[in-house]
């Protein structure tokens, strides 16, 4: 019951954070773009419920959910997104480029995978016992650097978990137009074991993640976790060619509904009010923070 509540609360935190973020765009408090994790919350909540706090994570453009499930502070993330000096990276990175403790993200598809592979190599050389996780989407299966990295990770038996979140779309491109052949076959071809789930049930994801994380931690080599899921929001802001019917249909897979059914009404209400307080505090505090200045760099 306790971890059911905790998992629900993590997913709700991500959901409400992203909703608040999208609404803040209309108030002009945010600039640039963002990639909401709404619909995919069970992936991050499930995975980070079975990792160790010191594990190394490289995330992609859709990183807020990963970051919050990793244990990152909503206030520091909100401040970063609002371009404040108190943000995770002082306003230099924004939505896609954050770093805190052993969590890193970058907005270049594919390029982060070799970097994470090198991190796993460093942890192995230094015998820290930490594993490395790297997150990619279905669209990123198109990038060549991924396959170079799979080859190297397998050759060198690195302790890395490749998490593929297949939300069936890459920006506006449906997976049928972007990915040929088999997803699992891609990993299998390099001898990398695959755990694959088509679910938004956080408990299923948690148990699959638990097995993969154990496998990687055992030192046998890399593993992959393929999670077929749904993104409910637009890719970033407004770029969504899906039909209204489709958007309604996929809501039946809402991870909050699926897992919420295991909680009492009081528990759900409790989670709501706790999360609301955290998010409100994060955004209100961040909004009062100063904007960064460039320091002493001068034009020649």
């Amino acid at each position, binding site marked *: 019951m306790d971890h059911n509540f905790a998992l629900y609360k993590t997913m709700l935190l991500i959901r409400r954070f992203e909703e608040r973020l999208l609404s803040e765009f209309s108030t002009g408090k945010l600039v640039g773009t963002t990639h909401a994790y709404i619909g995919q919350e069970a992936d991050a909540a499930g995975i980070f419920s079975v990792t160790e706090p010191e594990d190394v994570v490289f995330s992609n453009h859709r990183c807020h959910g990963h970051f919050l499930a990793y244990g990152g502070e909503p206030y520091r993330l909100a401040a970063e997104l609002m371009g404040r000096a108190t943000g995770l990276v002082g306003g230099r990175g924004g939505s896609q480029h954050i770093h805190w403790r052993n969590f890193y993200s970058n907005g*270049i598809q594919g390029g982060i995978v*070799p970097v994470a592979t090198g991190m796993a190599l*460093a942890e192995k050389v230094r015998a820290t016992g930490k594993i490395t996780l790297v997150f990619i989407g279905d669209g990123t299966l198109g990038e060549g650097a991924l396959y170079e990295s799979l080859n190297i990770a397998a050759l060198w038996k690195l302790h890395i978990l490749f998490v593929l979140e297949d939300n069936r779309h890459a920006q506006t491109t449906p997976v049928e137009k972007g990915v040929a052949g088999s997803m699992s076959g891609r990993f299998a071809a390099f001898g990398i074991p695959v755990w694959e789930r088509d679910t938004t049930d956080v408990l299923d994801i948690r148990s699959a993640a638990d097995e993969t994380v154990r496998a990687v931690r055992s030192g046998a080599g890399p593993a992959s976790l393929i999670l077929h899921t749904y993104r409910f929001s637009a890719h970033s802001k407004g770029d969504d060619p899906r039909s209204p019917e489709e958007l309604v249909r996929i809501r039946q897979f809402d991870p909050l509904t699926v897992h919420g059914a295991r909680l009492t009404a009081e528990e759900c209400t409790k989670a709501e009010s706790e999360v609301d307080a955290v998010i409100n505090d994060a955004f209100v505090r961040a909004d009062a923070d100063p904007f960064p200045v460039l320091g002493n760099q001068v034009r020649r």
Partner: protein
Amino acid sequence: MPTVLDRLNLALHYAMETDERVTMLGEDILDPYGGAFKVTRGLSTKFPKRVLTTPISEAAIVGVANGMALRGLRPVVEIMFGDFVTLIADQLVNHSSKFRWMYNDQVRVPVVVRTPMGGRRGYGPTHSQSLEKLFLGVPGLKVVAPNALGDPAELLAAAIADDDPVLFVEHKLLYARPLLEPGKGDLIDFQVEQTGGAYPAFTLRPADSARLTIACYGYNFELARAAALDLLMEHEIFVEIVLFSQLSPFDLAPLFSSLVRTRKLLTVEEGTLSLGWGAEVAARAVERMDGLRVRRVAALDLPVANAKSLEDAILPSVQDIVNAALSLVS
């Protein structure tokens, strides 16, 4: 005298001996082969665990090095031919050079990417280029090139000790060159001044007052010296030479000091002329000093041909430098 190759190899041995975080990665770098140009020779025998031969995956190797550097190691990557830097561009431009600043100075990326550049060996269009100009002016990335005057070992050691990413460009023709000694050979008439810092610049000042300044780096210093001798012997023109080790970020103070004396600038490089190193050097010099006269000598805007007659015609020659110098002082 030891050769440039000897010194580079020694620096790698020394770095691996003294710092166990230093790790080599590259294609075919294991003994007995020891790398396509033998720069890594002996390392894998002495440090088998820290010399990693990789698949032919340039992008991933540099990516892996970035990750290693972010997590506490000091990787040194060899890219077999400089022409292949196109494949690592994403890692250098969007990863290596970005992390420190983008993460608000909370991380360091001590990566060195070494690569042989340049032509004059008949390797043809895709194995003879000088592509370093593509990486000049990338904030957060240093571009450094050894030469036969400064000690390449010290330069490479400085790059490995650097907390920021360094693209280390080694001209292929330098490898077999013995190091030069100031006061000897064709350096006899030059007084050599050296700037401080990790990647020094050298100013060669002749006995008499010079009428122009040649700015160059790497192997082209050899051509510049030959041209300077010719100008002196055949035309009684003294030149100053400013030889850079650090190409980017641009730090041209020693050049400006020389130009105050000569007011004429000739840049020499082996990359193609358009948008090259010399273009930026010249622009900065002209912005700073009114009335400066400038010429650039570089490769023709063509691929580097295989046939020697064509390659020689495409790449800059000693005679090209002499001609440009004469037109500058006329």
